[in-house]
């Protein structure tokens, strides 16, 4: 009885403190949060027509697309964004031959040591090297980019909510703001920032990079802005999770095994319990 009485008293005291000092003052000053004015410009993420080949439980890499995406990264993104967790040898996984990987690596310069003098030099990369950093350090990167640090892209599609669609949309999200809304909200894009309807705070430090015909594809694919964005997004989805397709394919094998074993387990459960179960009336 003592414990229950004490419990009731403690319960009422806790609730009383919560209601009188937190809930009531909060309720009296109740104010729904005001959305910042840039919310008016936000748009839903978009996806390419037909989606991406690697999506869904049966998805597969489109290696031609990954190779196109790699060339976009090399020609456009790599001047500001690093890809530090990916090595050149990994490119074999997207369909380059060993010789092609060797040649591709050699077309990049990475920091090294001159074996004759011991001085720091730039040397052609080996397949075992990782993609080089575009700037010597973070301070240099910020100085070159209006004090914004261009994030590493190796994990970008996993490091943003709905990352694959986010990256695809962001590349295509540079639009002219609706003048009526601008007048209504008084929203401004300061110099050095760029209006993008998919960026969380709308004003993005990266200017538009992807335009129709920006690159030419050796395989004859038409380089529209949508195509380029889809290709580089697919490539970045691969760099974020190179084992994605292996994962899904393994999953089907595991699932098949488990379904079979669980069916057996169910039958043995029914057999063991036969005769023990009640006769329902």
């Amino acid at each position, binding site marked *: 009885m003592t414990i229950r009485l004490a419990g009731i008293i403690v319960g009422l005291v806790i*609730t009383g403190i919560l209601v009188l000092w937190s809930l009531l003052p909060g309720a009296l000053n109740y104010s729904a949060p005001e959305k910042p004015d840039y919310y008016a410009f936000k748009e839903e993420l978009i996806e390419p027509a037909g989606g991406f080949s690697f999506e869904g439980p049966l998805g597969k890499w489109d290696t031609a697309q990954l190779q196109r995406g790699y060339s976009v990264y090399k020609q456009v993104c790599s001047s500001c964004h690093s890809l530090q967790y990916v090595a050149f040898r990994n490119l074999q996984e997207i369909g380059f031959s060993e010789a092609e990987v060797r040649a591709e690596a050699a077309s990049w310069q990475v920091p090294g040591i001159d074996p004759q003098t011991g001085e720091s030099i730039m040397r052609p990369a080996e397949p075992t090297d990782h993609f080089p950093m575009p700037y010597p350090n973070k301070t240099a990167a910020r100085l070159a980019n209006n004090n914004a640090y261009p994030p590493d892209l190796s994990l970008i599609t996993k490091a943003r909510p709905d990352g694959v669609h986010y990256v695809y949309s962001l590349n295509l999200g540079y639009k002219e703001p609706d003048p009526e809304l601008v007048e209504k909200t008084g929203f401004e894009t300061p110099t050095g920032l760029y209006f993008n309807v998919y960026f969380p705070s709308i004003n993005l430090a990266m200017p538009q990079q992807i335009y129709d015909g920006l690159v030419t594809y050796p395989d004859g694919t038409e380089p529209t802005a949508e195509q380029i964005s889809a290709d580089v997004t697919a490539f970045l989805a691969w760099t974020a999770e190179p084992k994605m397709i292996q994962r899904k394919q393994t999953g089907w094998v595991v699932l098949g095994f488990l379904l079979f074993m669980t069916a057996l387990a169910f039958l043995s459960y029914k057999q063991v319990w036969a005769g023990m179960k009640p006769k329902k009336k």
Partner: protein
Amino acid sequence: MSFAWAKQYEPKSAFTKWIDEKLPVPRLVYNAVGAGYPVPRNLNYMWNFGVLAGFCLMLQIITGVVLAMQYESDTGVAFASVEHIMRNVNWGWMLRYAHANGASFFFIVIYLHIFRGLYYSSYKAPREMIWLLGVVIFLLMMATAFMGYVLPWGQMSFWGAKVITGLFGAIPLIGEPLQVWLVGGYAPNDATLSRFFSLHFLLPFVIAGVVILHIWALHIPGSSNPTGVEVKQESDTVPFHPYYTAKDGFGLGVFLILFTLFVFFLPNVLGHPDNYIEANPLSTPAHIVPEWYFLPFYAILRAFTGDLALFGVTLVPAKLLGVIAMFGSILVWFFLPWLDKSPVRSGSYRPLFKKFFWFGLVPCMILLTICGGSPAEEPWVILSQIATAYYFLHFLVILPIVSQIEVPKPLPFSITEAVLGSDDKPGSMEGGGDKPGKVVKPLPGSDPDGSLAPAE
């Protein structure tokens, strides 16, 4: 420690006889999870989760030990070492996804196990010790999971660690020095990561030790059951093996299928994208949220928004109130066996209790989870305050009063009657009714009819 009709282990070969004399491990297994452990025959699927929780613990220990062979607990390379596991270690991605989702599934299983206990009052005499040890296991699990989430050294790892270790700073007088001592600095740093790794490796084995005590304590009165009526006679029970090994085998299969769907097809949905960004002490994420299984307690922590002040003098700051309430919300479970004094165990025979359980406690926990994951703004603040108030009222006020005033439904005479209908009316069958044959000695604290005697 078992019922009189429990089967006895009989070693057959010369070798098992030799073992049985020297170190009777086969006998222990036989009595613990073999044919030597009689279990109520009417357990439903909610009784699968004990075995599943044990499976999860083993899964976490095995995957964790292997991951630890590749992981580096140095803030400079911790994040990169996790990426190394994901990209270069053979099947490393599978181990890591199994370990990360394994933690989530461990908590799903343990929450179902706890709520089974709450609904069927498994905490009541003679099983109080099992419940108390279970709450200890849950607290150890929370500490282990929290420290494990810090190890990848992503943004949520760092900021989550900062928020949670900051709670100790709310303790009056000793708070700040205590916090600096625990963290090894003023903010999470290399020393913090190393000690968290060390403890994250140690605690699962402590949990395993308490699990042994938990199971030991369970085998003294034996398992409870959905009617809450104690075992009276041999026809009320079946041997654990093969009856419940078969049923648990099926349950494990279903569990593994669901687990597989997450590990191989949705490995990141239960995590937070920010944790794929390396920890950066200079950049605070927009919303710091813990893992989903801590959200109800995080909501309780944040529900206290106002200092307890009288005439302009602050007696207890809001932060300390929140910390007390958050720890109190679990500590209150330690007192449940004595707060709920209804002589009936099973919620199925308690109409009023049942209403408060399904329409009070369960929606309250769901609401707390949603509020914990939402930003600290209206209407979530006020909803979390209402849910927190209900949470404490439920356990501390409603349960004691309900157990006093409620008129329970009539209980079945025995488990056998509950299963077979009227077949077990006294005298109708051998080994049951009024010819029970080998009747079990009533357990301390229970009436001969199996229900609990009121304490006062």
